[in-house]
Structure formats: C-alpha cells, structure tokens
C-alpha cells in the first residue's frame, strides 16, 4: 500500500508545472504552449567578457524563433548563460564511449556542478580567428539525468553554437562523414541546422525557422519528454478503429462511430468503508466523465483541479459541482501508445498525499457504457479528497489527478 502511495505521490509531484531536469526547466505556459529554460555555463580559457551575453542572444533568437514557429506545440526557449574563468584545466578520462560521458560528469564536472548546479557546460577553447578547432557535444540521449557537455572554440559562429547546443537539448546530426572527413548532408536535410554547413550565420539569426523545422523540434521534444515524463504532444490523437488499452485490470477504450468510450468492467477496492462509483463517458476531445461523491459536502470542498497529464494518456480538467456532490471531469486527451499498459484507478483522501493519506486503491474495468458511474465515499474526517487515475507501467505515469482544495 505504501508503495502505491509513493507512486501516487511521485505522479502527483510529476504533474506540477515547472519540471526541472538536468539542464533546464520545462513549464507549461498555455494550451499546447511550453517554455524551456535552458541553463548553460561557459568555462575554459577561451571565455571572454561578453561571451555569455552574445551566446545567449544568439541562442535565444535562433531557438525561440524556431520553437514559436512550430505548429504545435509552441515552445519558448530562453537560455540562461553563465560563465566562469575557473576550470581551465580539464582532464578527460579514458576513451570516448557512453561510459566516458558518465565519467566526465561524475569526476571532472563535480567541482563545476557544485558551483553551477543544474546546468550544462561548454568548455570554450581559446582560439584565434582562422584557427580550426572541431567542437562536439553530448547528445541529450547520452546525458539523460546528467548535465550536458560540449566543447567549442571562442570564435564559434552562431550556427555552430546553435547546432551544438541543439545536441545538448536532443537534436541529432543529419549528415555523415567519411574516413577522409568529407561530410555529406542526409537526403532531405539540406539547409537544415542539423546538417548543412552552408547556412549563413546572419540568415540563421534573423529567421531560424527557415533552418530548424518540425523534425528537429520533435527530436528535442522527445528528449524532453524522456527526461521529464511530460507529454508535449498536442492536438487530437489519431484514433482509428478499435483501441484497447488493457484487457485485465484497466480501462478499455473503444472507438465506436468516432467516439471513444471508456469501459469499466472490473472493480477492486482496498480499505474499509470505501467504494467507487464513477460515471464515465470519454470521447477523445472535450468529453465528460462525471464522478459522484456521496461525502463531498462533509468535506466542505467545492473545487477540484487537474493538471494536464505528464504523459498524456488521459488528462483533463475536473471540477466539483456547485452542490459539492459531483465531480465532473472533462477529459481532453486520451491516447494509448502502449496496448498492454496497465491502467489503474486510485482514489485517495486525506490531508495531503503523504503517509497520513488514507489511500483507497481500486483497479477496475467495467462494461463500457456511457453513464456508468463511480461513487466515492470519503471518511468523515477527511479534509481533502483526492482522486487519481494512473496509467503506469512500473515507474508510474500520471494520467489524471484531481483533489479538493482545503
């Protein structure tokens, strides 16, 4: 039970806005609109006065323009670039492998992380105009759970900086090199920041949306999703035909004549004096699930809120009815990417989602008929009610969570 409570707590925490990951912060600033705050620290002998400011200006311009030009979701990028004249000397360990990346972070970067936590780092090589230095960056894929790491030279162009920082955020390369060092742009990626070396710097800074398209942003979005557990996808899910989430202990969602129904055909409860009765009818967009609670009045609660789900299998907005007896949940997203996903519904009530929370865990599938309802009976002494729908596989992925305000 405590394990379940822990999962619930983690998921609840996970849906709070402003999620921090290793190198930045993701915030939901509106419908299908996010903001990425990306922290970058410049170190090394090549860092000069003004570097941080110039790099920030370029990065903000290039990535924010492209993010806001994206059809959906819109993403604001803001870079917070700091610099330090310390850490000139750097001992790189071993060979360049995935493991090495870990070693760079765990050994060499430990001092940096104390001084500049929650940041990615760029070692800036001291260079003169005309001096050829080849920079590189860890991909976000390689630095999950850690700060990103890159090296560039002091004279790096806006294109190089944007490209390498793009890697830190999750962008892949889309060109190949042969053994002689000659590069070939992947087919279809001509003129793209991820591949093409012929992009003019001023053109890029003036309007990056010509050089960073939805494919690049989708790579970054995917990396952010992996790190945060958020689902940044937006719009109506593409649902065709029958869609089944799980057959044993979860919600079965079926597309019937364009409507997606949630079928509840199983109920299980733990704890004393509690049972469920939930009314459910779920369409893909703007459908309504109505839950009734027989004890809502005694809880003295009138409002219930739900944040958009972390990974978006089901999410929506829920409000208590005026009389406080009915919880009306509007679901605006329902999607299954994992056909065998276990879908469980949890109900909890108590002062807060901590150890003193009385948790009722129920897993159910009932026959999917519009109008089926769940009834939730709260203990008399409950100050705050909490109702969560979880769609999880092992680690817990928040789907739907609403609770009363005290």
């Amino acid at each position, binding site marked *: 039970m405590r394990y379940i409570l822990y999962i619930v707590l983690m998921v609840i925490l996970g849906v709070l806005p402003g999620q921090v990951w290793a190198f930045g912060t993701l915030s939901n600033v509106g419908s299908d609109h996010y903001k990425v705050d990306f922290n970058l620290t410049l170190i090394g002998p090549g860092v000069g006065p003004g570097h941080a400011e110039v790099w920030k200006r370029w990065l903000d311009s290039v990535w924010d323009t492209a993010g806001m030009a994206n059809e959906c979701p819109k993403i604001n990028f803001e870079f917070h670039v700091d610099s330090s004249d310390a850490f000139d000397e750097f001992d*790189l360990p071993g060979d*360049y492998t995935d493991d090495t990346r870990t070693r760079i972070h765990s050994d060499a970067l430990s001092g940096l992380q104390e001084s500049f936590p929650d940041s990615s780092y760029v070692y800036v090589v001291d260079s*003169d*105009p*005309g001096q050829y230095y080849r920079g590189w960056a860890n991909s976000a894929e390689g630095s999950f759970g850690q700060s990103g790491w890159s090296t560039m030279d002091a004279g790096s162009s806006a294109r190089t900086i944007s490209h390498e920082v793009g890697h830190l955020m999750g962008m892949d390369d889309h*060109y190949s*090199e042969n053994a002689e060092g000659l*590069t070939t742009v992947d087919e279809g990626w001509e003129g793209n920041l991820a591949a093409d070396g012929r992009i003019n710097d001023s053109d890029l800074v003036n309007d990056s949306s010509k050089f960073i398209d939805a494919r690049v942003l989708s790579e970054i979005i995917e990396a952010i999703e992996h790190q945060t557990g958020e689902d940044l996808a937006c719009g109506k899910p593409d649902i065709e035909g029958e869609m089944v989430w799980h057959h044993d202990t979860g919600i079965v969602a079926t597309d019937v004549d364009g409507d997606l129904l949630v079928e509840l055909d199983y109920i299980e409860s733990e704890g004393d004096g509690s049972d469920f009765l939930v009314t459910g009818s779920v369409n893909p967009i703007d459908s309504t699930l109505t839950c009734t609670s027989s004890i809502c009045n005694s809880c003295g609660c009138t409002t219930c809120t739900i944040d958009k789900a972390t990974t978006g299998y089901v999410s929506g907005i829920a409000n208590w009815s005026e009389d406080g007896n009915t919880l009306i949940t509007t679901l605006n997203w329902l999607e299954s990417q994992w056909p065998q996903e276990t879908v469980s519904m949890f109900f909890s009530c108590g002062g807060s989602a901590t150890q003193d929370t009385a948790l009722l865990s129920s897993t159910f599938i009932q026959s999917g008929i519009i109008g089926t309802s769940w009834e939730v009976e709260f203990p008399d002494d409950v100050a705050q009610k909490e109702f969560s729908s979880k769609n999880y596989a092992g680690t817990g992925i928040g789907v739907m969570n609403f609770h009363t305000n005290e």
Partner: protein
Amino acid sequence: MPTKTPQRIAAFFVVILIFGIGVYILSDYFRFNREVTVSDVIEGFDGSDLNNSFYQLDKYILSPSKHAEAAQNATAYLGSSDPEILFAAVYLIVNTGDALYAPYLVPLLSHDDVLLRTVVAGRLIGWGEMASIPVLIESLDSDLMLPYADPPRRLSELAQEALPYYTKQDYISRNEWQQWWSQVKEQLIWNASTQQYGL
C-alpha cells in the same frame, strides 16, 4: 562428500562471481586512468572513429598545462605520409602550439591537400606568416568543406574569419582580395604586438 556438493557448487559460483567483479573493476580502473601519450593520440587517429579520435586530441587541447608537450611531440609527425597521422599532428599543433611552431608548419602551406594547407594557413596567419595569406585567399571561393568539422563548415570560413581580422580589410570576393594582395605583398609587415598586418 555427496551431501556437500551443492554447497561446493554454490561456493564455486560465488568465487567466479567475485573474480569477475574484480576483473571488471580493475579493467575499468585501468581503462579510465591509463596515461595516453601524444604519440598514442596521433598514431591512433582514426577517421572512421572520429568521436574517440578527437576526444583523445582534446585530452591535450583542454589541458593547457600539456600544450607544450603536445605541440613539441607532434612536430615529429609532420613528415608523415599517412594523411590521418599528418592531420592529427597538424591539428594538435594548431590548437596547442604558439608562434614558435610556425617554422614547422610553413612547409605545409604548399602541401598538395588543399584542405590541410588551408587549415595550416588559418593558424599561421595569426602567427605572422604572410605566406599564409595567398593560401587563404585561394580558398575563398572554394566549395569544399573543412575536414571532420562538426557541424559541417565551409573551408572558406577560415579565410573569411581571418583575412579581415588580421588585415583590417573588408573585401568580399576572392578577386578583390587577390588584387589587394598583389598590391601590398611586398610592403606588408606583421606587427606582433598588435597582431595585425599593415603597411
């Protein structure tokens, strides 16, 4: 004794497990703590494993206290006929050396490989070697790309960066630069204190 066989088998596997863990820890330790010499780095340069090759070069470039050692030892490879070794040696000197190493690189300004001689010229122009200027001018209208660059970069970018910076001229086309060079090449002087070429 037959009754002890299961315990012996279990003990055997425990010993094997402990041995395996020990081997792993030791090999891991040596892999990450072994000293890599300049020769290792240059001779090990492999164009088919660029990430690791440049990573090894960065062990010296990102450690300024090792720059003198790197540049000095790299000079021994400047006569190599192996293009990868030659490139690695040049790259290391370009990024760890100083103007004292210019005499070692000057002969490469006439190397057959335009990519290599342009990389060399891009470094030498800032070390006061005027012979680098026509090499850079030559690259201005080249459509070639810098070798191994990440992200890909035009070869001409080195010249576009360096020529205006060190000469304070702002010509655009190769022809303009060529004309300027023809007019001034006999009078041009390198001023080491200002890091500029002037008349």
